[in-house]
Each structure stands twice: as structure tokens, then as C-alpha cells.
């Protein structure tokens, strides 16, 4: 066993202190949001709450779960995350498998189009017009279909698939498997790390997206949680300083009730962040492995 020198101990101590500080700095904002969400809103407006709630209450969460728009937003968010992630991961994986074959016709053209689309886009208005033409505006599928293909993830997966020994595919073909069977039975099981990475990225993007709700959906029953959270922020912001005086009236901080706009915001933030926080530790190993698997070539 190697003897630890004074230098080793010093470096270790420094590392532990430094990482602890980083931990406090990164974790404390979440903790702050959590304690404010469990504190009475009016009392929280006084400030001075740092470690634990001063006036503990479930009122903020009660208001959240009893107000139809929040529950509806949560439902839409969960649905789009589950369906959107499954479809985008599956679809992107299939395209990546197809493009990973060296003998495919117009392969270079496909690649060029793929890379081009990563850097250039038509902009918001042409996209809006396109969605309108496809009949996707004001439909749940506007959250899912435009996001079904991820060019960057496809490129990463193409590199990953190329690392899989061709002999696996060859032997499957000899046994009579077609492309789809090879994809489903051989490629997918072997590609779990990269698929988990794609699923994680996809689900986070779906969960946090408010943009589609703002520009492409006007029906209130289709709005997502992130949209309503943004609305809460908008209710206290304005781009025109002369409107500030109107906003101050509506802000709700002076409201003589226990739940304020701010306390509701805290509860909503925590509800929005909690699922990702809970899921991520289980997918972390795939995430780290998946990000490097497609990159390293021997």
C-alpha cells in the first residue's frame, strides 16, 4: 500500500473543501426554492428565510393541485415528455441506423443536408407557416412531430453504431433477418447507453419547453407547465416602464392572503424540477458513457 504523503493529504483536504463549496453553491438555490415553497407566501415576502421555513404550510402546493390550469399543464407536460421522448428516440435511432450503412445511395447528400439543418433554419415565421400548412397548430402533435428527429443525436448514434462489429449484423442477415429485425434485435439492445442519453436529453427538452406553447398553441387546455410558469413571471414583468405602474397593482405581493404570486412560483418551480432531479441519478451512468462512446475512435 502506498504511503500518503503530506502533499497528498493537503491536496485531498483542499479538494474536499473546494468541492463542498461548489456543492453548497449549486445545491443551495434548489434548497432555497424548496423552503420558500413550504413557507407561507405573505411571511416569505418579509425575507430573512435562509435554512428552514419560518411558517410551514402546504398551502402553495394545495393551490397548485386544486387549480385546473396547473394540473392540466402538468398532465400535458408528462404526456408530451413520455410520448415525445419515446418517438424522438426511436425515430432518430432508426434514421441513424439507416445512415450508418456505408453502401446506402446518396449517403453524402443525406449527411450534408443533416449538417446543414443543424446550422441553418428558416426562422420562426417560416416555421409557423409550415406548421400551419401541416395542420399542426393548436394540436398536441405540434409538441411531438417537429421534435421527432434530432440531427446532432443522429450523428452521435451513427458513430456509435459504426463501432458495433459488422459481424453481428452479417450473421443475423445470414440467418434471414431483415433490416428492421437487425435494428430491433441487435442494434437497440447494444445501444442502450446512447439511447438512454438521447432519452435524457429529449425528456429534459420536452419538460422545459415553453416556446411551442407560446407561439404554436392557443388552446388553453393544451398549454404545458413551463408555459404557465412563464406566465407567472410575465405577470410581474413588463417591457414598457410605463406599464410598471399597472403591473405593481396586479403583482399580488400586497395581497392580503397567505399565498402570493411568488410563493406559487416557488412551488411550481419545484414541481417542475423534481422529476428531472429524481430521474437523472439513475441515467447518469448512461449519460456519461453515451457522450463519449460515439466520439472515441480506435
Amino acid at each position, binding site marked *: 500500500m502506498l504511503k500518503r504523503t503530506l502533499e497528498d493529504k493537503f491536496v485531498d483536504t483542499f479538494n474536499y473543501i473546494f468541492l463542498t463549496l461548489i456543492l453548497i453553491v449549486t445545491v443551495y438555490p434548489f434548497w432555497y426554492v424548496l423552503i420558500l415553497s413550504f413557507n407561507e407566501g*405573505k411571511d416569505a*415576502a*418579509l*425575507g*430573512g428565510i435562509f435554512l428552514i421555513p419560518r411558517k410551514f404550510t402546504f398551502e402553495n402546493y394545495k393551490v397548485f393541485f386544486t387549480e385546473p390550469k396547473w394540473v392540466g399543464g402538468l398532465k400535458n407536460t408528462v404526456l408530451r415528455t413520455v410520448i415525445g421522448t419515446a418517438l424522438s428516440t426511436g425515430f432518430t435511432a432508426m434514421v441513424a441506423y439507416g445512415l450508418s450503412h456505408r453502401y446506402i445511395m446518396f449517403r*453524402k*447528400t443525406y449527411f*450534408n443536408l443533416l449538417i*446543414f439543418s443543424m446550422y*441553418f*433554419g*428558416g*426562422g*420562426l*415565421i*417560416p416555421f*409557423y*407557416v409550415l406548421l*400551419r400548412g401541416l395542420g399542426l397548430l393548436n394540436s398536441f402533435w405540434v409538441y411531438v412531430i417537429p421534435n421527432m428527429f434530432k440531427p446532432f443525436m443522429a450523428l452521435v448514434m451513427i458513430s456509435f453504431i459504426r463501432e458495433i462489429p459488422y459481424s453481428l449484423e452479417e450473421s443475423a442477415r445470414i440467418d434471414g433477418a431483415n433490416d428492421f429485425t437487425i435494428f430491433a434485435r441487435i442494434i437497440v439492445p447494444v445501444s442502450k447507453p446512447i439511447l438512454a442519453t438521447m432519452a435524457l436529453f429529449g425528456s429534459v427538452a420536452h419538460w422545459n419547453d*415553453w416556446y411551442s*406553447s*407560446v*407561439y404554436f398553441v*392557443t388552446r*388553453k387546455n393544451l398549454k404545458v407547465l413551463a*408555459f404557465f410558469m*412563464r*406566465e407567472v413571471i*410575465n*405577470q*410581474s*414583468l*413588463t*417591457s*414598457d*416602464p*410605463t*406599464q*410598471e*405602474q*399597472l*403591473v*405593481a*397593482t*396586479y*403583482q*399580488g*405581493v*400586497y*395581497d*392580503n*392572503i397567505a399565498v402570493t404570486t*411568488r410563493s406559487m412560483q416557488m412551488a411550481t418551480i419545484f414541481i417542475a424540477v423534481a422529476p428531472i432531479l429524481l430521474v437523472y441519478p439513475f441515467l447518469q451512468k448512461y449519460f456519461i458513457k453515451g457522450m463519449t462512446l460515439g466520439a472515441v475512435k480506435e
Partner: protein
Amino acid sequence: MKKLVVFLLVCCMTMAVFAGCSAKPGDQPSDNPSETQGTESPQGTEGTPEAAEAPTPTPEWSKEPITFSIFIDHPWYLMDSFGGRPVDDLIIEKTGVTLDVTRSADDGQLPVLIASGDLHELVYTANKFESMAHAELCYSYDELIEKYCPEFPVTQLEKDINKSPDGKFYAIRNGYTPPEWKEKYSYALKSKVRSLIMRKDIMEELGNPPLNDLEDLYNILVMVRDRYPDMVPLLLDRYNLFVFFGVRFGVNSGYYCNAYLDENNTLISEFYHPGYKKTYAYLNRLVREKLVPKEALITSNEQFHQLVMNGRAFAFIRNTETYPQTKLTFEELNPGKSLMLVTDLLSENPVWVWDQAGYSGMFVTKECKDPARAIQFLYWFRTEEGRIATDWGIEGVHWEYGEDGLPRRTIEASEKMQTINQFFKETGIEQWNFFSIDVMRDAVNVSRDDPDVVEYLTRYDRIVKDIPTLFFTRPDSGTDERAVFQELNQLAGKYESKMINSASDEEFEKNFNDMLAEAEKIGLKKILEFQNERWKQINGTN
């Protein structure tokens, strides 16, 4: 082959760059406002409240149920639905119209709808007023009134204020108070003015020192700083600091046009007003003496409220209309402590030029399936019945006549107004007042129960100079002059921080002179020439 692919890629890239650009013809308004060409109001004497109040729609007009889609271009607006509230239901009963409301969630939403041609039937906007006022997008009110609603009450002044470069008007801005209305509701108090609020209990502990001018204020703040080191003597934020003190130093420039009229009726930039420099010199003195936090310009609303509510702020400046709720909440959270409103204007020659000609306008777009019904629907909001319902609510329920014969909130409504946004959300009051007149709204909302509020607002009312036409000396949006105008506004913001936080008189002078030099370099003189030219053009119709 490779060259062909590269060539195709270059073409695609070029097309992609231009893909999002599509200017519609007639997008840019002309720089020269055209001559006024309005029609006379058909009823009453021009410009009187009677001319603006017409009887309820005649029975010939349809009251068949119809739904109009409306886009409200205010992310902060309380309402995102219509119906199920007393005022909403009254509107449906009187007009037959239901509104399918879409409230914007982003300032960029309306431009997308405009560019994609996907507008709602009605659009209510302030920021995009000039963008919407085009014949390609909307019906002009001139056209709609002439064809479908000759009874629609509109004064020549309203037409002048709201007309576009093509001479027509496409909407009437909300919130403007014509002079004749001010007379009719002379008892109403302008609520949206800044006031100085102080801790009454601490003033009593200090022995109620005199507070007659800004020097007295300075002395009191010094006493607070020395005796109560944990307190913030004066809490300010960036929206209130110049507006409050500029009035006291006599800066008589318009809020929107950033210029004041001299004795020759010529517009001069507010930068050159002696009071402008004095205002910032005073603020700099307050910051240097640690009477105002250095972070005044970046204090968020939340921090502001926390410092007020936890009793750490001795004095602060806020809108007067929030004072009653603030006082109530503060005293509930801090038993034994109290707030007071300073009724003295603290100046011998205060002045406030109000150059606002309204803010939001209701547009009837070319997507409207029944423009005749739309203008007849909007007509109701211009009647006395419509104005009272949308601003005051239901008589006997939300408002009543007091013993003095003046309208006031009922006791029940006053209590509910302590949670003011809840009150508006539940009743629909002040949410559908598309042609609201500020003074009429203020007539019931400002409580005459608090003598300090009444005294202060009455005094303030005497110093206000209404010059709404100054608003139109601003360059039109999308023009080069407007870009320079915006740059000058941003310059003022940039140097505001430097001037207020100057470490010495010399540094303050340097920063102030640097600001003037940079303003002139950007084009201040050119903008003033433009504004004076505009002022001459519209002056004859003032």
C-alpha cells in the same frame, strides 16, 4: 460533382438567409403626418362628454350570439378568458358578443401573427399600435363608422391623436383623458402618481421634524441614518427616482417626448433643463451620503417589497394607488408600526407634464368575419352604460352614490379590493374597458376615505400640465430618427447610473458633461429639429 454540391449548398444557404424576410407592401409609414381629415361627430357639440356618450344601441342592431377572437398583446394582463363574471356577462347580455381570448405570453407573438397573416379578429395592443395601423391589416374606424355605425361617438381630438400617416385612424388609444372629461369628473384624483411614504412611528421618535422641502427631507434622512444604522433611509428603484425628483426640480419635459417647451413654444431637450442636472446632483448627494443604497438602480421588486414589509426601509417612493394596500399589509405584519404618506410636494415650483395620449388600442382586423357587428360591439363600450360597467362594475354591487352625490366603491367592494387582482379577476372590472378614460376610472378607485391621499392627489392635480400632443413629436417606429431617439433614451439610462454613483462633485460634472457630449454626437440636435418640425405641424390642431 463536388463543385455542383457546393454550388447548391451556397444557393440553399442564401435562400435560407432570406427565408424569414417578407416585407408587406406599405409597411413603412411615411414621415410626414398628413392633414387632418375627419368627419364631424353626429351628436352633440364637438368635444363635449355628451358627444362622447351616446344612447344604448338601437334595437335594429343584432344581438344574435356571436363570438369574436381577440388577441390581447399584454403578457401581464389579468384576463385570459371571458365569461362567468358579472361584467363579462353584462357585456354578453347587452351586445350578444362573446370573446374568445388569447393573451400573449411573449412580446414576439404578435409580430409572428402579423407576418404569417394569422391575426385574430380583434387585436388589443400598445407596443405594436403603429405596426397594426395599416389598411392591409385592419379596417379603419373611419370606414367602419361610415358604413355600419354612424352613431359611433368620436371627437375630432381623438381622431387627430390616433390618426396614422395615411390620415385614417385604426384604433382609439385607451386611457387618455380629454379636457372635457376632466371637467366632468373634476372630483376624480389622478391615482398613478408617485408619492413619498414614510414610517410614521420613526418620525414621531425623531420628534416630527419639519418636512417642507427637499433639504428638510435630506436632513431627516441623515438623522435616520445616524440613529438607525440598520435601516435604509430612503428606498428607491430605477422607475421612481427620476420621475419623483424631476417633478420637484421643475423638469417640465414630457415623459414620452423627453423634451420641454420653452417660452417661445420651442422644444428643448430635457438634458438642457437646469432641473435635470439638479435632480441627478441631489440623487448623487443622497447616494454619497449613504442615504440611498448604491444598488437603487438594480433593486428588484421583490427586494423592494421585502425591505418595506420587514420594516427596514424608513422611506420609499411608490405609486399612490398602492398606498392603502401597502399600509394595511405593513401594519398587519408589523404591529405597533405604521406608515404615513407625505402630502407636501416638497417644492416651490413642482410641475409634471403629462404627454400621454393613451396606450392600448383595439383594432378590427381584416380577419374579422363581421366587421359591422364588431364596430357596433365596440360602440357599446363608448356609451355611458358601457363605460360605467367596464370601469366601475354593477351599481349597488360594486359601486354606489355616496352621501356627497359622488360615485364610490361599496363597502363590500372596498374590502375585496384589498386583494385587488382577485377582485378584478372575479368581477371583470377594468379588464374590458377598451376605451377607458383614466379620470373616470379614478373617480371610484381612489378612496376619498384617506384624507392624506385626497390632500396629496389634490395638490398634485394642480401641478399637472396635460399636453398629449407632445407624444406625437416622437419619431415614428421603424424610422432612422426613431433609432436615434431610442439610442438617446438608452444613453440617459447608461449615464444615470454613473451620475448617481459619482464619488465627488467633480466626477459628477464630468459624467454629466460626457453625457451631453455623447448625446450631441449621437444626434440630439437633429432629433430636436425633427421634433420641433413635428410640433409645428401638429400645433395648429392642438
